[in-house]
């Protein structure tokens, strides 16, 4: 009985921990600009301080922010697709084939997962300017791919190791062509893993900030996190808080939608890829 009460309290704690700051930023996004300038402490907007949907309208009318949404969605989706394809090839080889250099691939992936990103932006900044990749979509897609490959390779190879590959042969014995065996047997078994890797990759690309501010200079390629941080001036103590909050909420909506739909897959992917012991 005591344990049960403890669990209930624990659940309440987790929910408060996770949702309170989210509720706060949503509440902030409904405070009016004038209330913010005059100072409006308190969790909820005081009476008369509410701005309705005005902040959201302003944010979505802002060209820079609209461009940033397009950039972020485009760059993240392309990086995710390419990264997952390349990682699938590598993970298949690691899970199923015996070959020299397997250990090298795993070690490299691990080393890169721990790499201090900031120590690369200096030289990359220099290189990208020489190659004309500075401030372009590919200029961000390439580093995103490199840094999401380790996670994708680990997750996928953990998944692929669990697949009963004999079923492919079994299907062929039963008269399926090899294409049918692949499409009807292997693809459905492998799809959840590929999917998980894709979600985790997308999260990384969507969240990135260091590359986003270092390798872009205009709205041509600037993604949402960078755009948010450069939103109106650079004085960190005097920002248009409620506008920013509205932008922050908009940028969080895709994440919440993904989490709501794919919760089970993300948890499975995080735990199977990271700790198989």
């Amino acid at each position, binding site marked *: 009985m005591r344990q049960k009460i403890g*669990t209930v309290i*624990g*659940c309440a704690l987790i*929910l408060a*921990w*996770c*949702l309170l*700051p989210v509720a*706060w*930023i949503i509440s*902030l996004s409904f*405070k009016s600009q004038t209330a*913010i300038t005059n100072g*409006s*402490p*308190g969790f909820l907007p005081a009476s008369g301080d509410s701005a309705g949907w005005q902040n959201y309208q302003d944010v979505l009318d802002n060209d820079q922010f609209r461009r940033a949404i397009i950039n972020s969605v485009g760059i993240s989706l392309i990086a995710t697709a390419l990264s997952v394809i390349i*990682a699938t090839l*590598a993970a298949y*080889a690691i899970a199923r*084939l015996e*070959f*020299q*250099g397997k250990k*090298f*691939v*795993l070690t490299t992936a*691990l080393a890169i997962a*721990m*790499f*201090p*990103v*900031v*120590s690369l*932006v*200096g*030289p990359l900044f*220099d290189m990208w300017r020489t190659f004309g990749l500075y401030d372009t979509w590919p200029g961000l897609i390439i580093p995103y791919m*490199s840094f999401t490959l380790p996670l994708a*390779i680990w997750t996928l190879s953990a998944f692929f190791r669990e697949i009963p590959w004999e079923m492919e042969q079994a299907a062929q014995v039963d008269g399926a062509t090899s294409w049918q065996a692949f499409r009807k047997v292997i693809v459905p078994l492998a799809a959840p893993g590929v999917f998980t890797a894709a979600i985790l990759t997308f*999260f990384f690309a969507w969240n990135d900030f*260091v590359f986003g501010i*270092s390798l872009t200079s205009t709205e041509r390629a600037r993604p*949402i*996190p960078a755009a*948010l*941080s450069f939103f109106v001036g650079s004085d*960190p103590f005097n*920002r248009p*808080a409620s506008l920013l909050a509205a932008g*922050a909420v908009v940028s*969080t909506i895709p994440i*919440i939608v993904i*989490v709501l739909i794919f919760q*089970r897959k993300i948890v499975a992917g*995080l735990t*199977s890829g*990271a*700790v*198989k*012991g």
Partner: protein
Amino acid sequence: MTAVTAPPRSEGAAKPELSDRARAETRLGQRLVAPAIVLMLVVTAFPMIRALYLSLFSYSLTAPEDREFVGLSNYLTALTDSLFWRDTFVTVLYMLVTVSVELVIGFVFAMVMHRVVFARGVIRTSILIPYGIITVVSGFAWQFAFSFQNGFVNDWLPFLDTDFNWFGDTTPAVIAIMVSEIWKTTPFMSLLLLAGLAQVSEDMIEAAKVDGATWWQRLWKVILPNMRAAIMVAVLFRALDAYRIFDNIFVMTSGAVNTESISFLTYRQTIEQFQLGIGSALSVLLFLSVLVIAWLIVKLFKVDLAAARQEG
């Protein structure tokens, strides 16, 4: 990492006892991993070598013609500057505090998630929200929460004046940054620990219970030793991640009032001030310190990464 060699790819390198089939498998395997390896190395190893090279020059992008070979003097400048050591100290502090707090809270969360039978989906969905949210957004949310003009923290903490300025002094500002960092990354920690917890056999816990072990004894003598691998992997990953702390500092204080981390210092030198020479030296030092920390954790706690990550 920069010292690793390419995998032996030539036919001659294959051992003579390999059968044709094994050789074909090796070839296919290497072909399948080649794109991934190339991509990972192009963006990391190559720029790292370039940083090593540039760090030997006095080189500023504002005056590229004045580039001049200066040997190791950039390193000397960095290592004798008190700013470098202060930032390193602050970074280590961020790492130690956030990882320890996350370990405790993350473990409690993992225990709860492990036990809970009802509303499992709701709990897991909400714990993924901080994990998925953009760090910059988390930084903003907490910066505004701590702001005395528009936040609620001063209101809610009874022992504080309502006009207490969290960002006016080093200690409170560092605490505010840590809160944002901890909030955002604890879910990751707790999910890794949850996976470890799932591998502790219920029978063993039951047996300890029958033998009369208290809850506390079961936790320390049965549960924790059996999920050691998971704990160590979680600590290793989070510690290295925490050492690279950047986003929250950029958003919340821009490095004001001595809250700057070593990553932030590197960024400021290279991207903001275009000092590629000294910036590259800082990049190399940052990279080396990450290596040292990784090595220390692996040695100190005897983390068996291969066992934890590979075959069951």
